[in-house]
Every structure is written in C-alpha cells, then in structure tokens.
C-alpha cells in the first residue's frame, strides 16, 4: 500500500504504459475489495455490540426471580429463574472474562462501539482515496484507448 502511494507520487500516470496502468488498476481493485470486506465485518461487530447494549438495558429492567427459558440446545429449553439481573459476564478477549454489572456492561459496549466507529471512519477514508485514484486511472486508460483509436483511424485514412 505505502509502496504504491510512493509510486503514485514518483511516476505521473501519463508516463506509464497501458499494461502498467492495468496492472495497478487490478491491484487497487483487489485492495478495495479486501478493505470493503473488512468494513462489512466491522459493521457486523457494530451490530453485535449494539444488540448487546440493548439487551443489557432490558436485563437491567427485568425484576429478580423472573421466569425465563434457558436454551440448552438450539431447540431444547429448560425453565429457569433470573437470580442476578444486575450481574453479567463479559468476554474481554484473549480468554479473559470479567464480572460486571449491567451499567458497566453498557459502558463497555459504548467504548467498543466508539473504537469501532473510529476504525470504520479511517477505513472508509482509505477506501474512498483508493476509489478516487481508481477514477483517475480509468480516465487515463480511456485517454489511451482514444489515442490508439485515433492513430488507427489516421493509418486507415492514409491507406485510402
């Protein structure tokens, strides 16, 4: 990525051969695709934390000893009773779990959402930059095609 950007600065587009232009275009297309994939993964993570936050809020408002059904398998549920509506276990990552109350849990989700938002914004910016460069490349490529067509036309006219 950084290498390419250096190339962009070092070599003006009109000095490159069409083959080189196509190669760069292909490379950038792949990069954009990869980055877009990451972005959609970010969106999934975002949705998960959003959902967790909503559920934590609801759990906080649920009275103690509330009856509930606990999923044992995907289709088997066992009746249960809510003993501690205020306490949840949060997966902090790398194998660490921490007991938190629902309010702290919501703060945790907020922090993660904030972090995700920042990363998402950064990533979107990068993708947009790449797309802009792609536009430039496409314009340059079109120019080349026109040039070749003009030369061919001239040659045909000369033959006549």
């Amino acid at each position, binding site marked *: 990525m950084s290498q390419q950007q250096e190339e962009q600065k070092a070599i003006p587009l009109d000095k490159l051969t069409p083959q080189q232009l196509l190669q760069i275009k292909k490379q950038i297309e792949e990069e954009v695709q990869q980055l877009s994939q990451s972005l959609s993964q970010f969106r999934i993570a975002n949705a998960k934390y959003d959902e967790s936050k909503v559920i934590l809020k609801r759990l906080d408002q649920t009275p103690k000893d509330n009856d509930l059904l606990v999923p044992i398998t995907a289709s088997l549920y066992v009746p249960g009773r809510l003993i501690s509506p205020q306490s949840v*276990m949060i997966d*902090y*990552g*790398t194998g*660490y*779990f*921490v*007991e*938190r109350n629902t309010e702290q849990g919501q703060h945790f989700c907020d922090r993660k959402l904030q972090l995700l938002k920042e990363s998402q914004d950064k990533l979107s910016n990068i993708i947009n930059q790449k797309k802009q460069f792609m536009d430039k490349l496409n314009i340059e490529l079109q120019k080349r095609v026109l040039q070749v067509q003009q030369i061919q036309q001239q040659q045909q006219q000369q033959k006549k």
Partner: protein
Amino acid sequence: MAEQVQMLQSKIEDESKVLQTLQREMQKYVEGRQKLIEQSHENEMVKKELDLLEPEAKVYKLIASVLVSQTLQESKENVSKRLDFIGKEFKKVEDLIKENTNKQIAKKTSIQKMQEQLYQIVQAYQQSLNK
C-alpha cells in the same frame, strides 16, 4: 563448451530452486508477522480494558473450557507478559524477513550473472559458427 553450458544451466536451475524455497519461507514469515500484529492488537485492547477495572473486580481466565478465577493484578501481569513475548517474536520475524530479503537479492544477482555468462558463451559460439 557444451560442458560449460550444461554446468551453468544446472547451476542456474539449482540456484532458482533455492530462490523459490526462500520465497516460500518469506511468505510464511509475512503470514506469521500478520498474525503477531493481530494478536498484539487484541492484547493491547484487553490491557486497556483491564486498566479501567477497579482492583476488586472479579476476573476469570478461560483455561480449556473452564473459567478460572484470577486476580486483576495477575491478569494484568499476564497480559503484559504476553505483549512482551509477542513483541520479541515480532522482532525475531522482522530479522528473519530482513535476512531472507538479503539472501533473495544475493541469489537473484548470482543467477543474473550466470545467465549473462551463459548468454556470452552462446553468442561467442554463434559468432564462431558464422565465421
């Protein structure tokens, strides 16, 4: 002359094979480096979150499929140790990548030299035929 050509050709082939192995190794190193970067990010995130906790917070560590209670202090030390380890591993891989790059450059130049030699021999032979 034929012997010389054959010798050079087989040498070039051997060296190309070495170069290919080097390239394969490089790929492994780069993948390893990527993994280490991811791990270090993840641990960094956990460390930040652990730093926000109050000292009496109940922390559990997942060992196999069992959650084992651990003090916050212990967990923090553990994560720091892991980050240290990842940092060291990262340096190791970086060094390996540098070494590998240098080796690849050396191999490429030596192959190029031999190819030039081969080319010169063939040209000299053709000139002698033309005479």
